[in-house]
């Protein structure tokens, strides 16, 4: 064995009185991929932020390549060869793709920026990631998946010795995940150490050699991946036995909740027809950029579009804004919870009641009623937070997602459109959310789930619409819903005469 590239000794971190990490002692060898698992709020991101110098440890030391530090800062840690893709986006929205890729590590010629070289290198790196992007595009124009790939590109142009990946796969589809893993393996061969966080146990199993499991800020396991099964991992994370992940699919479709005819968004979405029943969980699957989000946003009145008809519960509401959509009983959970979902400097309570504020208002807002409701949600969804007054910006990613879900649920919508609903959520909670979604359907609500996770689509949804390049490429039900078929349709390797209402007739 070589010398470890990173070594932490009794690393502790508290925020105020809250202790988040306790006595983490860890060695990471060059060329090793270490998986880090833990429930939401277990302290995974905090650990990585300590190593990358974003946070200062309360006590303990970090050793990089034999040098010992009591505290780091981002500049120093970068200097020592540590590169990180954080859980939340870390790109400058006003700058271009290539400018972001080289931010803080610009190429120069005679003191000035060598833009051509940077552009060329950006194209090359993105190509190696199988992403086609204009290096001059501005970040704010990109989809979340594209942003994620830009983040990956940043790390690649940086000659890092240690690469930290905090849930890089949550917004990627399987295809991009495969690409990313190839890249990680190539780095590994060059002797780069990789720290990898994911809630997808299979990914950890595939990619990592070693595994660390955190529970409530304590290190409960450090072992070889080969020695454990996925079930073992889940059990150790949660600290008890877990039952099956997905609820039984029990479709009792009743009346039609929503019927959409010929939705068009120029250049993005074409002739989309959709029929959704109460009691149904309908899946929208497809590759990144296929236009699923746009369909949802058009339904919510967030995007200009044309359509022939939109019937919701027998009525034809005129939906021009999310407000109209809410009034019609529809609610939408965006895939971009930071940019579109939650107000980061609002407390949990204020976020949860933002859509439903009327409910708590008789003249003035009743804070106690708000609080009680928030408390309910906190215990129902097991939201981990110091208090209900905490700003959601301080919560762990998964817990933010739960708050976001609570925010939608608080208006008790009849139709839910959930775009990547379990993004960044740990296995246990994921399971809870699946049961929750299924439960909603059982109560007679209609749910659309947009997901890039095939497993989720397959385990939860029936029927499933596969979207390709803005069109419905296929409508699958029952046994048709399997990984192979979905992928073939999504990638355009197989065609159907899809998109007509007849073809999409009601499933019994």
């Amino acid at each position: 064995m070589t010398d470890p590239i990173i070594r932490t000794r009794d690393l502790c971190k508290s925020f105020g009185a809250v202790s988040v990490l306790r006595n983490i002692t860890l060695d990471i060898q060059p060329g090793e991929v270490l998986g880090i698992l833990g429930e939401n709020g277990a302290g995974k991101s905090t650990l990585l932020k300590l190593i990358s110098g974003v946070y200062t440890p309360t006590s303990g030391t970090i050793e990089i390549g034999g040098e010992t530090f009591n505290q780091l800062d981002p500049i120093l840690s970068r200097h020592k060869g540590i590169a990180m893709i954080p859980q939340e986006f870390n790109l400058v929205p006003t700058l271009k793709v290539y400018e972001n890729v080289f931010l803080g590590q610009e190429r120069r010629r005679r003191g000035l920026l060598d833009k051509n070289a940077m552009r060329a290198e950006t194209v090359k790196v993105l190509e190696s990631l199988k992403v086609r992007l204009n290096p001059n595009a501005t970040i704010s124009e990109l989809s979340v998946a594209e942003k994620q790939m830009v983040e990956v590109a940043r790390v690649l142009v940086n000659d890092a010795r240690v690469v930290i990946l905090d849930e890089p796969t949550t917004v990627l589809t399987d295809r991009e995940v495969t690409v990313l893993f190839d890249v990680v393996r190539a780095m590994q061969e060059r002797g780069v150490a990789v720290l990898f966080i994911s809630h997808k146990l299979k990914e950890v199993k595939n990619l990592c050699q070693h595994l660390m499991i955190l529970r409530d800020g304590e290190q409960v396991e450090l072992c070889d991946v080969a020695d454990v099964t996925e079930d073992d991992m889940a059990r150790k994370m949660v600290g008890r036995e877990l039952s099956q992940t997905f609820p039984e699919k029990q479709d009792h479709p009743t009346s039609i909740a929503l019927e959409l005819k010929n939705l068009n968004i120029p250049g993005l979405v074409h002739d989309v027809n959709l029929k959704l029943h109460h009691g149904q969980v309908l899946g929208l699957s497809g590759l990144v950029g296929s236009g699923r989000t746009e369909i949802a946003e058009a339904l919510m009145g967030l995007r200009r579009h044309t359509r022939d008809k939109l019937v919701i519960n027998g009525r034809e509401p005129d939906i021009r804004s999310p407000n109209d959509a809410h009034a019609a009983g529809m609610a939408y959970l965006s895939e971009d919870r930071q940019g579109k979902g939650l107000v980061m400097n609002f407390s949990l309570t204020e976020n949860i009641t933002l859509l439903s504020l009327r409910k708590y208002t008789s003249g003035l807002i009743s804070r106690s009623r708000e609080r009680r409701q928030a408390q309910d949600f906190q215990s129902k969804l097991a939201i981990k937070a110091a208090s209900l007054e905490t700003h959601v910006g301080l919560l762990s990613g998964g817990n933010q997602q739960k708050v976001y879900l609570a925010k939608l649920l608080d208006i008790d919508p009849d139709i839910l459109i959930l775009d990547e609903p379990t993004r960044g959520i740990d296995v246990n909670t994921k399971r809870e959310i699946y049961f929750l979604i299924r439960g909603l359907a059982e109560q007679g609500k209609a749910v659309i789930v947009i997901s890039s996770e095939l497993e989720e689509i397959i385990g939860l949804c029936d029927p499933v619409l596969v979207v390709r390049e803005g069109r419905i490429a296929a409508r699958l039900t029952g046994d048709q819903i399997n990984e192979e078929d979905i992928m073939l349709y999504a990638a355009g390797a197989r065609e159907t005469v899809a998109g007509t209402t007849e073809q999409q007739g009601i499933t019994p």
Partner: protein
Amino acid sequence: MNQARLAGARLSDRLRNSGLDFSILAPLVALIVLLVISSLASEYFLDLRNLTNITRQVSYTGIIAIGVTFVIIAAGIDLSVGSMVALVGVVLIYTVNQFADPVQGVIIGLAMAVLAGALFGLLNGALVTWGKITPFIATLATMSIYRSLALYFSDAGEMVSTNSLFPEIGGGYALGLPIPVWTFLIIAVLAHILLAHTPFGRHLCAVGSNAQVARYSGIRVQRIILITFVIAGACVGISSIMLASRLNSISPSDAGVFYELDAIAAVVIGGTALSGGRGSIWGTVMGALILGVINNMLNMLGISPYLQGLVKGGVILVAVLMQYKQNH
């Protein structure tokens, strides 16, 4: 030393849990310190009449600052309020002088003033929302436009009211306090309720914090922004009433000059961030009082005219620095 800090942390924790807004504590402390220093520095400072004077002097920009607080929370800014004071004043005195019956004149005049203020605010808001002009530039332009109109309509001359009742408003007292002070207080209470206890206030903070999130949450972002400017305009209307009736006249060239800076300073000293998303009315009230006390001190201590700017700037810096120490 460390223990003291710990105790401080504990105290602030307890305060926070008690529901008392921590953010207004900082300007409050700054104000109290300033009051203590002032009363030590000048024997006349604590004189009741002096305190009444300060509060009345503060009320004109204070009322405006309250309106501007809303605009700033929505991440906007309003530079036109000073000129608007003059233009509204011209409209007001013109109207008041149209009626022979003093009561009628005053009532219709006041209504017109508030209306005119709201209307000018609406114009600002329309430029920002429909015109998509950034608030700084939109209100910089209307600042110039409103002043120009005030000069034009009054032929640049001072307008004097001929109504016998009119001066009683800004010059009068009720229960021992000047009417402008009462007005300031009442507006502060109403504004506080609006901001902290109604859906509008909550939505406003969401808009200022992240307009995109607000839009996705079904909040009518543009309408909220528009309303903030209307509120600011209406506050200007009221302030203009207080000022014009106190002076029984309005000088179109001079009225409200630099009020925009004073108002914004009060808001920011009061702890409301210029980047929007949160803010407190009581903070603004403290901010306005802090500025008023500074002005009073400059006169009380007889500071050299040349150095008044130095002292004023210095005290503002210290007051804000003190807040920072408080906050961290």
